[in-house]
C-alpha cells in the first residue's frame, strides 16, 4: 500500500491504537488502512465503540495516554514532501503546522468544544494568528469574512459574542469557521450534526458541501447516521470493533451491501415512506466491549451467516472484489476451501 497516486491526500496504513487501562488493553483501532483523496469526502460509518472517533483523533495525533498509536503509518501528502504523522515528535513545529493548518477537525458538541470565556471572534482569531503571519487588522478581516462565509448573520457583531449567546446551530457554524479559517486541505468532521435539530442539520450539511466546493478540501466524515452519510460521502468505510469490515462507493453501500454487518445495519433502520407495519429486522445481541473482542471474526456472535468452525476460529482478511470494493468476510474469500461464494 506504499504506492499512491497523485490524487491521494492522506493515506493510513495498518493503524493500531490501543488504550492501556487498568482493566486491560482496549484495542480501539485494530489495523485500519484507508486513503482520502484530494477534495473527496470519505465517510466513516459505525456505531459507538467501533473506533471511528479514535481514528479521527489519531490523524491529528490527539490520542492521549492511556491511549497510544501502537503502529501504522499516517502519511500526509499535502506538503511538498511526504510526512508520516505517526513518526513526528508530538511537539514538532511541522506537526503543529499540519494540525489546524492543513488538517482541521470539528466535533459533535459545539458547546463543549468552544471556550466559554472567549468571544467567538477571539477563537477564530487565535487559529489565524497561530498559523498565518498576518497583521492584527488583516486577521480581524479574515475572521469576519470567515464568519460570514459560514452563514452567520452580522459577522461583525458575532465577533464580539460569547458561545452561550449563540444557538446550537450558530455555535456549530462558529466551530466550522475556526476549523476552516486557515483553509485546511482536510477537514475531519466527527458527527458534526448529531446534536442538532433536523432543520439545523440540513443547513449545516448544505453549508459543508458548499464550503467543500469553495475551498477544494477533502472531508473525513464520521457518523453513525446512514441518511447523513448518503448525503455527504462518495466513498464509505464501515467500521466494526476497530476494524474496517467494508469499503465501498456510496451507491453500492445502499444498493448491494456486502458485509453481513452492513446488510443488517441497513435492514434495521426505519425508513421514511416505507410504512408496511412490519417489524424491523433487528441485529441480534449487542456490540461487544472493545476490551473483550470475540475470537475469529469479531462480528460472528451476531452474524446471520455465521459459519461454525471458521468464523469463530479464523480472522477473515480483507478481500478486494473485481469492482474495487473491499470486504472483510469469509463469504467472499474464495481461497478458502469449503467456503461458498455469494458472488458466483
Amino acid at each position, binding site marked *: 500500500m506504499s504506492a499512491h497516486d497523485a490524487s491521494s491526500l492522506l493515506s493510513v496504513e495498518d493503524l493500531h491504537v490501543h488504550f492501556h487501562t487498568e482493566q486491560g488493553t482496549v484495542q480501539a483501532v485494530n489495523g485500519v488502512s484507508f486513503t482520502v483523496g484530494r477534495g473527496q469526502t470519505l465517510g466513516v460509518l459505525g*456505531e*459507538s465503540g467501533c473506533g471511528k472517533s479514535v481514528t479521527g483523533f489519531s490523524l491529528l495525533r490527539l490520542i492521549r495516554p492511556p491511549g497510544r498509536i501502537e503502529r501504522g503509518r499516517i502519511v500526509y501528502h499535502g506538503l511538498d514532501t511526504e510526512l508520516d504523522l505517526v513518526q513526528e515528535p508530538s511537539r514538532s513545529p511541522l506537526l503543529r503546522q499540519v494540525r489546524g493548518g492543513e488538517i482541521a477537525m470539528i466535533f459533535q458538541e459545539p458547546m463543549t468544544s468552544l471556550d466559554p470565556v472567549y468571544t467567538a471572534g477571539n477563537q477564530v482569531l487565535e487559529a489565524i494568528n497561530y498559523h498565518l503571519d498576518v497583521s492584527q487588522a488583516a486577521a480581524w478581516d479574515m475572521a469576519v469574512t470567515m464568519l460570514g462565509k459560514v452563514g452567520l448573520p452580522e459577522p461583525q457583531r458575532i465577533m464580539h459574542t460569547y458561545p452561550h449567546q449563540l*444557538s*446550537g*446551530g*450558530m455555535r456549530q457554524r462558529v466551530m466550522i469557521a475556526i476549523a476552516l479559517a486557515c483553509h485546511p486541505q482536510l477537514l475531519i468532521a466527527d458527527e458534526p450534526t448529531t446534536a442538532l*435539530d*433536523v*432543520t*439545523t*442539520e*440540513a*443547513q449545516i*450539511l*448544505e453549508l459543508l458541501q458548499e464550503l467543500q466546493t469553495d475551498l477544494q478540501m477533502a472531508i473525513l466524515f464520521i457518523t*453513525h*447516521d*446512514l*441518511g*447523513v*452519510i*448518503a*448525503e455527504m460521502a462518495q466513498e464509505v468505510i464501515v467500521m466494526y470493533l476497530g476494524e474496517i469490515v467494508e469499503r465501498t462507493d*456510496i*451507491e453500492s*453501500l*445502499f444498493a448491494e451491501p456486502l458485509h453481513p454487518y452492513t446488510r*443488517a*445495519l*441497513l435492514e*434495521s*433502520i*426505519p*425508513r*421514511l*415512506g416505507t*410504512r408496511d*407495519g412490519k*417489524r*424491523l*429486522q*433487528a*441485529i441480534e445481541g*449487542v*456490540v461487544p466491549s472493545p476490551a473483550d473482542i470475540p475470537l475469529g471474526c469479531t462480528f460472528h456472535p451476531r452474524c446471520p451467516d455465521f459459519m461454525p468452525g471458521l468464523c469463530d476460529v479464523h480472522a477473515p482478511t480483507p478481500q478486494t472484489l473485481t469492482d474495487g470494493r473491499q470486504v472483510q468476510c469469509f463469504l467472499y474469500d474464495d481461497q478458502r476451501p469449503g467456503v461458498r461464494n455469494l458472488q458466483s
Partner: protein
Amino acid sequence: MSTSPTTPLLTVEDLRMHHPVGAGMMQRRTGVVKAVDGISFTIPTGRTLGLVGESGCGKTTTGHCIMRGYTPTAGRILFHDPNRGPLDICQADRRTLAYIRQKVQMVFQDPYSSLNPRMTVQEIVGEPLRVNQGLSGPALRARVEELLTVVGLHVSAMNRFPHAFSGGQRQRLVIARALSLRPALIVADEPVSALDVSIQAQTLNLLQDLQERYGLSYLFIAHDLSVVEHISDEVAVMYVGRIVEMGPTHQVFDTPRHPYTSALLSAVPRPNPSRTHQRIILQGEVPNPANPPSGCAFHPRCRHAEDRCRHEIPVLQATGDGHRVACHFADSLSLPGIGQV
C-alpha cells in the same frame, strides 16, 4: 393497523404551561415562556400518538405535564380510567394522583441517567412494586423475574448494577420498571435517541410487542421522523408550544398541509444516495419561546407567509381528509410529502 374507532384513554384539552421568567436580584417577573400554549389531543386505548418537533417546541414539557411533573397553567388532562371514569390529572389530589401515576408511566431518553447506579436491578425494577403494592420477598422476586423476561433480559441479571449493562439493556430495564405496575399509558420521551442504530430496532420491536401484548397506549415523543413514522398511528407536529398539524401518520407524512411539516420531512437525511431532490432548507432558527413572533410563529421562516400570517394566529382546523392543521393557507397550498421530497 386497523382504523376502527376506539375508546379514548387520555384527552388533553387546551393545555397551557407558562413558566414565569425572572430577572435581576429579586427575580422580578419580566415575562413568561409559553412552553406549551393551548394544545389538545386524544390518545385512544392501545394506540400510539407520536409527538414530533425540534428542541424547544414543548414536546417534553407536554409529557411532564401528563405526569404532573409540572402543574399546568391551564387546561385539562383527562385520564379515562375503566373503573373510576375520567380523572383530571391537573386537578387531582394526592391520592388520585398516586393512583394515576401507577397507570401512566414514563420512559426517558437517557438510560444512563434514569437508573440509580447504586441500586441493583431487583431494587430498581422492584421499587414501584414495593412502594405501591407492598410486595416483598419471593412474590416481589417472582414479579421482577417475570418483568425481566418480558423485556428480554436474563433473570441472572437480578443482582447486578446498571453499570454492567449496555445502553440498550439499560433501556430495557427502564421499560421493565415502567411496566411493573401494569400501566395503561407510557409516555416515552425520546426512548431510542440515545441508542445505537442496531439497538434502536430491538427497542422499537420490544415496544411494539408490549403494546400488542398488554394493549398499551404510547405517547411517543421524538425528533426522529422515520422512527415516529414507523411506530405511530397518529402524529402531532409541534412548533413553539403549539400543534401545527395532527392526523393519521400516513396522511400527515404523505400529504402534509402545514409548510413546517413539509420542510421538516424534507430536511431528514435519507439513506438513498441516488435521490435527487430539491430540499427545502428553512432559513433561520426555531424562535425563542420567551419571545415568539407575532401571528403564526412560523411566519419568519415560511416561504408562503403573507401579511395575514404576521398578525393573526392560525387555529387548528379540520381539513377535508381527516387531519387538522393550523395554517391560514392550508387549503390553497400544495406541499410536498415524503413521496416527493
